[in-house]
């Protein structure tokens, strides 16, 4: 860990609170804009959603009640190839991005029809520009021959993909440090005080100063946002994920519930549980996830489970992100979402540019917290 002994080392143009996928992506984009950035991270006692996520770069179905969210998710997916390439060029780390399309399997005909209707509505809302296809089981098996007989069909999104989220986190961390960024993870920031020249941030380990401050601390934003005139009404939503042994590749496309990594590991998801701040696992949910995955792909029935974990999603009441600049304290920004992987390229790109310049062409007005108080 870096030691920050002098005042000058404890100053930065921007302090980013939170060293997960969201904070790092924004921090890299701010560095690209020529700003000095320090990341203040709570350390490994934090909830660490970035260590627990599933790794999808996912577009289909996102934003079915908010076209702007569909638009920024698609924009990020389009920016992803360049984002991954830049990380690889800078660090040599290949985050294993693959964007050949993705499948959402449905286990009943009504579920498939409802999903098709939802995506059709999204296509209309997007003025016709919203690529997807609905596949019956026979068509699905042209993509994945191992889809089981209980599968009704699937929806195909050509813009979907996946990557290795831990390599992504590591690549961003290395690139940020290469560029002279500093990461301090000596404890939780307990107090943010607006000053004449920016913000003073206090933890048990001392004080930092940033001309600007970006809140990217996931569920930790709940306590931080009100200190700079913002609101982050976030709730935890638990997802459990199962990891199986490495097997020869059979799944050439990510699906909403099962994906296979470059190394052959099978990852099975997921659950959506309202259990407060408990990131644990439960046998009944693990069994349910395993059962559903083996219905979708019967060859998984004798695959070995290696481990499972729970992680807490960072959820707003409507599930959509918060991107908001403080009116009361200019220079303070809130960036939070539950899809930090999908939106990573957006955060490194247009979102960081917005914070650096205070201007944007993104429709960010729909992503502020006032929508929850109307």
């Amino acid at each position, binding site marked *: 860990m870096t030691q920050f002994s002098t005042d000058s080392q404890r100053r930065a143009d921007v302090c980013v609170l939170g060293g997960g996928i969201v904070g790092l992506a924004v921090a890299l984009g701010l560095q690209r804009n020529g700003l000095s950035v320090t990341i203040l991270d709570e350390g490994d006692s934090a909830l660490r959603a970035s260590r627990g996520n599933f790794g999808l770069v996912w577009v289909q179905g996102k934003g079915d009640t908010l076209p702007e969210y569909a638009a920024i998710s698609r924009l990020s997916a389009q920016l992803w190839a360049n984002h991954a390439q830049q990380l690889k060029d800078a660090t040599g780390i290949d985050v294993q991005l693959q964007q050949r399309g993705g499948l959402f399997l449905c286990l009943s005909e009504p579920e498939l029809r409802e999903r098709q209707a939802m995506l059709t509505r999204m296509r209309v809302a997007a003025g016709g520009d919203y690529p997807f296809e609905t596949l019956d089981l026979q068509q699905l098996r042209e993509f994945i021959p191992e889809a089981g007989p209980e599968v009704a069909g699937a929806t195909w999104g050509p813009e979907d993909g996946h990557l290795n989220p831990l390599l992504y986190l590591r690549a961003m961390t290395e690139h940020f440090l290469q560029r002279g960024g500093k990461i301090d993870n000596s404890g939780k920031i307990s107090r943010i005080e607006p000053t004449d020249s920016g913000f003073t941030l206090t933890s048990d380990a001392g004080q930092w100063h940033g001309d600007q401050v970006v809140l990217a601390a996931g569920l930790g934003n709940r306590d931080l946002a009100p200190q700079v005139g913002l609101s982050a009404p976030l709730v935890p939503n638990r997802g459990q994920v199962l990891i199986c042994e490495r097997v020869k590749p059979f799944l050439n496309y990510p699906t909403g519930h099962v994906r296979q990594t470059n190394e052959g590991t099978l990852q099975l998801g997921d659950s959506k549980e309202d259990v407060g701040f408990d990131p644990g696992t439960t046998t009944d949910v693990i069994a349910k996830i395993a059962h559903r995955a083996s219905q979708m792909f019967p*060859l998984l029935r004798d695959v070995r489970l290696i481990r499972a974990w729970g992680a807490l999603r960072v959820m707003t009441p409507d599930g959509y992100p918060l991107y908001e600049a403080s009116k009361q304290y200019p220079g303070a920004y809130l960036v939070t979402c539950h899809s930090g*992987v999908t939106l990573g390229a957006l955060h490194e790109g247009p979102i960081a540019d917005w914070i650096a310049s205070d201007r944007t062409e993104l429709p960010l007005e729909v992503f502020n917290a006032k929508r929850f108080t109307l």
Partner: protein
Amino acid sequence: MPNALPFKRLTTNSTEWITVYIEGQPVKIRQGDSAAAAVLVAGLQPSRTTVVSGSGRAPYCMMGVCFECLLKIDGVENVQGCMTPACDGMQIVSQQQARQLNRTDFSDSDLSSANLSNKNLTDKKNEDPSV
């Protein structure tokens, strides 16, 4: 197969001798030895190759943690040798990289199970699969 490794048996161990087959060659071990112990006795090196690079590995922790002792035992791939008691006549071969899952033949099963409904799912129609 040569007994290449300098393992010595405790004299207190007095169980029966059994025969297992390592890469087809008979090897005498004690009843109660694990399959991983058997490949160490036989000097099978490497006893597996890794999935990504194909580099060689051998049993290491002998207590179910490190997964370096994966073997193909009686035709089943990716078995943890250290957690598997050997038995007389057991066929043990090295695990070569990733396991091949048995492909499914759906030619008959489609009709027989097509009517199964799915009662255990909690999926919602608009489920957003990413985290």
